[in-house]
């Protein structure tokens, strides 16, 4: 059966070039960058090259990059590390109601450690209002963390504007963004946008799982959350994941190449997909229209479907892979906080799917998905719990 993979926000297929390069590093340049001999130097060079590539894509300094195991670790390190390092200045943190659990649950943890956290609401498109943000900034605010692109509905947050508000009102406070869904879809230049720290994950952009990075602006105070051999200036001890780091860098450069053109094309396919979805009765697309939301995420609610997993598995039966809400949360069927926060009608909370595209997703695949939905929905709607 042909496979139509529309779950790129969960993870992506690794680019063959990336896999090839990683294989080479694992079997040939397998040294430990911390070793003093030539084999170590060879591996260190792989890391240096990767840092140069990534730094130039983001227009930052290589020394401002900390390699981690992925988005979750980056978010933890950023939030806990910066909150702890700056707690002399205050203990108030700001975030939103629609963050990834890696941010939300880290904030919840810090609440148990005596920090106070404001969770900002969002509008019906999932966007934080600048006024709300401004009002939330307090005398003792030390950190704000607002995601760049929401993973469930593709909302794009006004990160640049919020960072500016924060820095104007509290120059010592730091601004972190989880850019896991945005990196490779937006040209994010942290320095120009006032971003002090940013999380990126490799496996969302054609790189390997288990690799990611945290950008931390030079001079920003942060302390480690794990201890060991003192690698990466003590900020993240542990032997460098050399193949992962190299894979991340190569995947990033492939993804960011001609990004604007690729995005144009992706937006066109997304528009066609949304239009075709709209032609099915009882299908409602969530999130902001057009270019106001991310090019690769489409969230749709299905009237008359009380358990969306059934629709998901029915699509799977046709070789089409999608997510219910967000993949990270969907193994334990709790209600999506993002969908709640945008005020989705209660009957749709359990009836929403996320379709997430990659640059290689074709319009035919999207249209086949629409056709499959047209076939499946009437049958599934007929057999509901009564």
């Amino acid at each position: 059966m042909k496979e139509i993979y529309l779950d790129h926000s969960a993870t992506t297929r690794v680019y063959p070039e990336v896999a090839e390069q990683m294989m080479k590093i694992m079997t040939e340049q397998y040294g430990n960058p911390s070793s003093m001999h030539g084999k170590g130097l060879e591996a260190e060079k792989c890391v240096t090259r990767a840092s140069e590539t990534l730094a130039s894509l983001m227009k930052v300094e290589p020394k401002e990059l900390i390699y981690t195991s992925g988005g979750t670790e980056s978010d933890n390190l950023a939030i806990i590390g910066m909150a702890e390092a700056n707690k002399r200045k205050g203990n108030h943190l700001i975030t939103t109601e629609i963050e990834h659990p890696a941010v939300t649950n880290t904030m919840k943890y810090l609440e148990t450690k005596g920090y106070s956290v404001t969770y900002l609401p969002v509008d019906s498109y999932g966007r934080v209002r600048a006024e709300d943000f401004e009002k939330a900034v307090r005398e003792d605010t030390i950190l704000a963390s607002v995601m760049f692109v929401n993973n469930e509905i593709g909302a794009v947050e006004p990160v640049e504007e919020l960072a500016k508000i924060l820095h104007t009102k509290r120059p010592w406070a730091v601004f972190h963004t989880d850019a896991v869904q945005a990196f490779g879809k937006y040209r994010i230049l942290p320095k120009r946008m006032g971003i002090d720290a940013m999380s990126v994950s490799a496996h969302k952009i054609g790189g390997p799982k288990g690799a990611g990075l945290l950008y931390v602006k030079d001079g920003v105070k942060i302390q480690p959350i794990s201890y060991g051999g003192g690698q990466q200036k003590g900020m993240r001890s542990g032997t460098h994941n050399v193949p992962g780091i190299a894979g991340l860098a190569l995947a990033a450069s492939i993804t960011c190449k001609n990004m604007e053109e690729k995005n144009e094309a992706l937006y066109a396919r997304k528009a066609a997909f949304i239009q075709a979805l709209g032609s099915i009765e009882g299908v409602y697309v969530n999130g902001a229209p057009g270019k106001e939301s991310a090019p690769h995420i489409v969230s749709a609610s299905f009237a008359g479907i009380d358990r969306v997993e059934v629709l998901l598995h029915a699509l799977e039966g046709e070789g089409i892979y999608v997510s219910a809400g967000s993949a990270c949360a969907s193994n334990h069927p709790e209600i999506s906080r993002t969908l709640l926060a945008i005020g989705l009608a209660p009957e749709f909370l359990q009836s929403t799917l996320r379709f997430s595209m990659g640059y290689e997703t074709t319009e035919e695949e999207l249209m086949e998905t629409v056709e499959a939905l047209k076939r499946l929905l009437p049958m599934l709607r007929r057999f509901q719990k009564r």
Partner: protein
Amino acid sequence: MEFQAFLIKYAEIGIKGKNRGVFEDALLHQMRVHLKHIDGDFRIVKEQGRIYLQTAHYDFEEVVRAMQHVFGITKICPVVQVEDNGFENLAKAVADYVEAVYGPNAEPVPGMELPRSGRGPITFKVETRRPVKTYPMNSMEISAALGEAILDRADYMKVDVHSPMVQINVEIRQGFINIYSAEIPGAGGMPLGTNGKAMLLLSGGIDSPVAGYMISRRGVKLDATYFHAPPYTSERAKEKVVTLAKKVAEYSGPIELHVVNFTDIQLAIYEKCPHDELTIIMRRYMMRIAERIATETGSIGLITGESIGQVASQTMASMAVTNAPCTLPVYRPLIGFDKEDIVTLSKKIGTFETSIEPFEDCCTIFVAKHPVTKPNLHIIEASEKKLLPEIDEMVEKAIREAETIWCGFSSGNHEEE
């Protein structure tokens, strides 16, 4: 404490008259099957109605665990073996043994609950057997002398020949002597393969794996049938059932799991029959299909995890109706169990953790709010007529297209038997 052998005790096999040899051979075979999966040097010695497992280079807990998976074994006794170098030596060895197992500095032996010194005296008696009669003292004399040796060494021990807390057994054999006292409980039951094969109706729940275990414990081999209903149930729900089957197979030996696609039948029932009868009719079709597969694959009984009154479909009246289409006997080993008992057993055999993983089961997708609890067979049969004639072909198709998954013993890298 280092043990050089285990005495393997079995109860019921001993009373089976002429079949005894068959049962013992089945037991030995199963012991070998389980020992094959663990590291160590093992030799099974069968003599005079006793089975000894001689061991070297082994992990104590691993061996005990393996033996606890063999049905038919009631007790596993770790044995200390010493060379026969005269009575003085033996007396010292027995006193050492007592000190090591019951003394104030004794290391606990995993799996055994032993009386410990420090809470009043431990009462004991010594029981000597002499399969080799050449020893210079008789059994009574040896027991008495060894008792004294123990008392000389261990002030926390006290003789009580009538109801001792521990019995120190000494077996004088050719060239060596066995010393043992403590027993680790085995799984009990009958050796596998001494009682035919049955078909288990396996779901992802807590009960059915336990039911399979119970029947298998009586020496019965198992196959299983699982009903799935894609897209209403997921691949992961199926994987969960495969995992459960494998866990039961650690005791029962390999299980052939027949995965039957039940979606069409379920939807037909849903569409054509009264909703309060859904579950009953569904279960009747499950029984019919399982019985067909059972007959075709050599099983001579069906097993379900039902217990009276647990849910609407398990009232006496409901079970009478679901039982009606079957001609094979249906075994319901949990019939008189409370849920708590079933959970306890499920934890003991290691299926509980898997059973409680949250995946939708095909029995739970289309449940009526108020299902019938006292169904009437005639009414149910009348409702089933509405499914004709298509239903027969659906049943045929479900059986024809059932997928068979071999669920065998798997521990670590070993995958066999």
